[in-house]
């Protein structure tokens, strides 16, 4: 490897080609989405659980944006999920906005405001501080929803939510078909947006901030500004996930804020890996399917097996949360013939 100094030089087309290759669709990505959409026809009897998976996947995608790309760990991401859920619920219940897509967007925007405000608390301190602050915010919101029962319905949950048919045509049915098409569509669109963002200069700067904030600021990146921006965006995503659940269930409850939900979400990302966007999606599928399968097998003790899986994954992954999926992803990038031919 100790070759004499090479004087290879590059041209603009080499460099722009490499930049473009970073954002190009990998064949496995296309297969992934074809498989996801094929469930519309192939698994019509499973649309109820698939809806839950799509919503959990969106929620996990949101956490991946801050954890995988910006290195912000949170144990209270359910705060945004619950907040978005209640905003959507209140809009529908009080007949303010019954058109689902518009209600979804408004819920996302409202949650992004909450994300923006709380981001300044999360910026401070270490990982442990962030865990506690995020956890605390989720607990406070849950109790606020509990306390103001006149508005939220308190422990009984929010009922009587009106949601119009999607696009004025597709009514939500009891088999969950419409709910699934709707949730999967929203997930896909928001995934596309997230994919675009992480491949932008902004997305690249997030990875720099995560890797080395000292150096990032030494190349004139405003570290705090970037963290506020991505935290706000992630809050909007989580809020939309919560709003989706409210709309598809026509119900919102205090459980949406629960610590369990935040903790499960970290588990989902540990299963799927962070920092490549698909971790949350794959993790959500594995988590829900395992949950379903194990709770049929041992209805009371299924968490034992989930715990065992968690321990095994973390031991295999060791250093990083993303650890255990790294070899798989290296393999995937080797399978991409276009990347290979570019390099040689």
């Amino acid at each position: 490897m100790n070759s004499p100094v090479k004087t290879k030089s590059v041209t603009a087309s080499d460099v722009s080609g490499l930049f473009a290759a970073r954002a190009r669709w990998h064949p496995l990505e296309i297969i992934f989405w074809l498989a996801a959409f094929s469930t519309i026809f192939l698994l019509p009897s499973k649309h109820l659980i698939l809806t839950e998976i799509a919503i959990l996947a969106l929620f996990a995608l949101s956490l991946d944006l801050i954890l995988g790309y910006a290195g912000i760990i949170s144990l209270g991401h359910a705060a945004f999920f619950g907040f978005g859920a209640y905003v959507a619920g209140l809009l529908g219940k009080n007949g303010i906005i019954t058109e689902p897509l518009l209600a979804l967007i408004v819920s996302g925007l409202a949650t992004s405001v909450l994300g923006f405000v709380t981001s300044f608390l999360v910026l401070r301190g270490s990982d442990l501080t962030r865990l506690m602050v995020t956890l605390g915010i989720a607990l406070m919101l849950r109790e606020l929803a509990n306390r103001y029962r006149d508005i939220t319905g308190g422990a009984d949950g929010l009922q009587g939510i009106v949601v119009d048919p999607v696009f004025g045509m597709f009514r939500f049915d009891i088999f969950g078909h419409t709910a699934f098409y709707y949730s999967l569509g929203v997930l896909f669109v928001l995934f596309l947006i997230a994919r675009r963002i992480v491949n932008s200069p902004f997305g690249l700067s997030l990875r720099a901030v995560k890797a080395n904030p000292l150096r990032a600021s030494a190349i004139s990146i405003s570290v705090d500004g970037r963290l506020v921006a991505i935290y706000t965006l992630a809050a909007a995503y989580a809020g939309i996930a919560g709003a989706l659940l409210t709309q598809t269930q026509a119900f919102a409850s205090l459980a949406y804020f629960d610590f369990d939900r935040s903790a499960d979400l970290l588990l989902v990302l540990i299963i799927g890996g962070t920092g490549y966007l698909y971790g949350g999606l794959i993790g959500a599928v594995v988590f829900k399917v395992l949950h379903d399968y194990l709770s049929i097998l041992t209805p009371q003790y299924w968490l034992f097996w989930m715990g065992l899986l968690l321990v095994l994954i973390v031991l295999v992954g060791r250093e990083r949360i993303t650890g255990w999926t790294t070899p798989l992803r290296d393999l995937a990038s080797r399978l991409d013939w276009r990347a290979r031919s570019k390099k040689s």
Partner: protein
Amino acid sequence: MTLALETVGLERRFGGIVATSNVSLKVEKGARHALIGPNGAGKTTIINLLTGVLRPTAGRVLLDGEDITSLKAHARVKRGIARTFQINQLFGDLTPLETIGLAVSERMGAGSDFWRIAGSKSEVVDEVVRILNQFRLADVMDERTSILPYGKQRLLEIALAIACKPRVLLLDEPAAGVPEHERHDILAAVSALPKDVTVLLIEHDMDLVFSFADRISVLVNGALFVEGKPDEVARDPRVKAVYLGEDADV
């Protein structure tokens, strides 16, 4: 005499320890100025004060006559002062291409663009190409930074600072720890820095200091001790006694 960089009575205390004591440093425009001093003299502290990583306890920092003391680190870079680090501070998971692309995008105002693909602006690409070639990083541009040879990482350190197109560049021991067979590239890169860029060099390697600098400041115990042209500093008996040691002849 126009000053690119000036400090006025700069002071920094860590608890009871005075790391920087009343330092009034003047760096002329276009200078090749070296800051030397024994270990623990407070050289890196001064770099950190100049770049906004640390806040001074007292005193001011002026860049082209403008007070930048209250600016944050990233804002100072935008004003035209960039640095390298004594110990590599790079983005391990990113490639040199991405790293340089990021700094150039940032400088050209595309850094917070969240919609276009990184590297889709042709002026960014042209600048990245120029820097990769200038610093001989082309053959490793698509490798992860963390697996690059140490010498290449040191080059990337300098390239990254240059990508910010600074008017004042602070080099913190650029050749530190670089193995002999990779040193030449670093020295060549340092001596090829554009003439209009003012350079403040911190270095232990006296060969590099005396071949490079046209002005030298000696720092001892956090305070400026001697300042002058290289031959004056080399002849100064106090410097020999305090810093260079008894048997030094340069």
